[in-house]
């Protein structure tokens, strides 16, 4: 393997390009018309245009991607996440073109992509008892608890259906029913797996991914504050068994829903890198992307197990407006200061001057905080979110500060419904002082329009002569840290 085409965009393409470079592999980017100026294009050794902004014309177009790989002399293709990452057809097309697909074989992707087949496979592998979930049978026309049946075992379903149908018919004049999963307070937990071509499977601990909005993950952490060691061991054992059952190769994640009591249900296998992979990397010191590439190149996993250290939390930075139902907010990036310092990692796909395209997912970057303990990691994360400056579009940076600072998160007992339960109708605090500064900035700029021009400001670039009066009138007065009122706007 010498050159890898990255069939993706955004922060994950940037991440993969860097991993290639660090392994001495050349990296080829692809880009749609909307991504001509994207960061991943800037960083790659090669960048190939693949079509229009619409993903179907570019990042989802198998033929163009394979042709791009061929034309630039790539001998491998990394799919990233999303787009074609879990398309067995893409994996097969890459293989048929004589190239290495950085991921599981197409047959494995297909087997796990078909949820019913996946479940049957798991049943055959003896993971059956953990499959399925309790169900609620409900009357379509109903309410008030009538026509509702809780089904704990699938064997009980036929009778429950019969019974509910009768009740519903009597109560509402309609016997139409629907089924829903009964998971009132549930944790979304996944186990990271690495498997090499020789059949060695290892796990790298779990990720707690319960904090979600719009059914999309927002904050992830490892270890899960909810998972005790015996449960962790059972989840990991199940995940490894699942991977072995399908002869899994490369990186993958086995997702579970876990009830407060510790009962867990196999959900699915993600046959690709996860967005939230950095928390596992930071905790274990294992570079998952490099291992994906190494496994694809035929390397074997090391014998010693990965040891996790401390606590890692990731926040996803989205271009969206949390006060308007998380409506996406593309726009130009007029100013950008990404946080750094001890224990902070930012995986970013943007730069100042870039125009966030309308065509794609609003994920801009991910902030990961690591520290020895969860409270310390939270403290670091809060500092990093507060230092993060991104002007020109709306982001969830303020929202995330409020979520991370909320007792519901700090307690560690977050379930998949925490955002809707605790942050419905959220609005950012707009302290009067902030408004006053905003007004003063506008007034000053009316007097001197150059204040925002780089290099035009203040006394920059000049050594003040001795004894020259300072522009600031009262520099020697003691000043306190900014602590604005917390009035909700």
């Amino acid at each position: 393997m010498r050159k890898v085409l990255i069939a993706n965009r955004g922060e994950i393409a940037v991440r993969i390009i860097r991993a290639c470079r660090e392994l001495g592999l050349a990296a080829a980017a692809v880009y749609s018309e909307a991504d001509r100026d994207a960061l991943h294009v800037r960083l790659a050794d090669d960048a190939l245009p693949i079509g229009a902004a619409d993903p179907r014309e570019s990042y989802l177009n198998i033929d163009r991607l394979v042709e791009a790989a061929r034309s630039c002399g790539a001998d491998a293709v990394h799919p990233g996440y999303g787009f074609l990452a879990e398309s067995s057809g893409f994996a097969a097309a890459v293989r048929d073109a004589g190239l290495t697909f950085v991921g599981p074989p197409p047959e494995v992707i297909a087997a796990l992509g078909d949820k019913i087949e996946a479940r049957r496979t798991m049943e055959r592998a003896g993971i059956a008892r953990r499959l399925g979930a309790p169900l609620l049978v409900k009357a379509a026309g109903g309410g008030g608890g009538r026509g509702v049946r809780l089904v704990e075992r699938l064997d009980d379903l036929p009778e429950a259906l019969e019974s509910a149908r009768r009740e519903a018919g009597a109560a509402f004049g309609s016997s139409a029913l629907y089924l829903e999963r009964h998971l009132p307070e549930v944790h979304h937990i996944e186990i990271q797996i690495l498997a090499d071509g020789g059949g060695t499977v290892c796990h790298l601990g779990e990720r707690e991914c319960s904090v979600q909005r719009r059914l999309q993950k927002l904050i992830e952490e490892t270890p899960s504050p909810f998972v005790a060691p015996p449960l962790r061991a059972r989840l990991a054992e199940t995940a490894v068994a699942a991977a072995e059952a399908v002869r899994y190769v490369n990186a993958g994640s086995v997702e579970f829903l876990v009830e407060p009591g510790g009962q867990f249900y196999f959900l699915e296998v993600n046959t690709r890198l996860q967005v939230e992979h950095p928390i596992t990397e930071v905790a274990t010191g294992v570079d998952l992307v490099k291992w994906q590439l190494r496994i694809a190149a035929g390397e074997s996993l090391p014998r010693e197990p990965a040891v996790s250290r401390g606590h890692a939390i990731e926040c996803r930075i989205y271009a969206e407006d949390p006060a308007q139902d998380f409506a996406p907010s593309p726009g130009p990036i007029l100013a950008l200061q990404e946080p750094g310092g001890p224990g902070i990692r930012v995986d970013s796909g943007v730069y100042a001057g870039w125009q966030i395209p309308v065509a794609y997912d609003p994920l801009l970057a991910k902030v990961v905080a690591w520290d020895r303990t969860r409270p310390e990691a939270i403290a670091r994360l809060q500092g990093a979110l507060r230092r993060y400056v991104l002007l020109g579009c709306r982001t969830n940076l303020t929202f995330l500060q409020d979520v991370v600072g909320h007792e519901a998160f700090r307690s560690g007992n977050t379930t998949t419904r925490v955002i809707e339960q605790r942050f419905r109708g959220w609005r950012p605090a707009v302290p009067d002082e902030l408004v006053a500064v905003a007004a003063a900035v506008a007034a000053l700029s009316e007097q001197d329009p150059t204040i925002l021009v780089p290099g035009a400001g203040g006394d920059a670039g000049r050594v003040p002569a001795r004894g020259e009066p300072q522009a600031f009138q009262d520099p020697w007065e003691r000043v306190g840290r900014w602590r604005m009122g917390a009035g909700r706007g």
Partner: protein
Amino acid sequence: MGELTLHLGDRAVTCDVEREGDGFVVRAGGGAHRVHLSPLGAGALRVRVGDHLAIATVARQGERWYLHLDGHTLEYRVASGGRRGAPRASGAGLVAPMPGLVTQVLAGVGDSVTVGQPLVIIEAMKMEHVIRSSLGGRIRAINVRSGDQIEGGTVVVEVSPAEGAGGSAP
């Protein structure tokens, strides 16, 4: 220097801004704030409000201002002077909160609509956003068609309030 009106999303705040020495006195929200600003270049400004010192980052594009101060980000537009008291036109102009593609227009001019009724669906960044009527009334105008690519802030539908409905209008 007089009055400035700051438009912060769906609300407007009128501030009275006066020069005082090398700073400003800003009256807003019932309080008066002494603000000193020193531009440092590159969008950075030394800010002092009362006893507190901070460095702010400011950016501007056209009418839109962006201010970052100690973890808070404010997006605003500025109108100077007397627009404060200007009476708002009766009825509602429903604006797109984001740029995107109009995928569906669910009502026509003259239709009567209720609060919360979906009127237009736009799509951006792999998400759908439903624009709903903010009041009961009748549709006066529809400014977009399905397939249009629109900018954030575009008034997509204008609604006149139903006669006798929800008005403190004089």
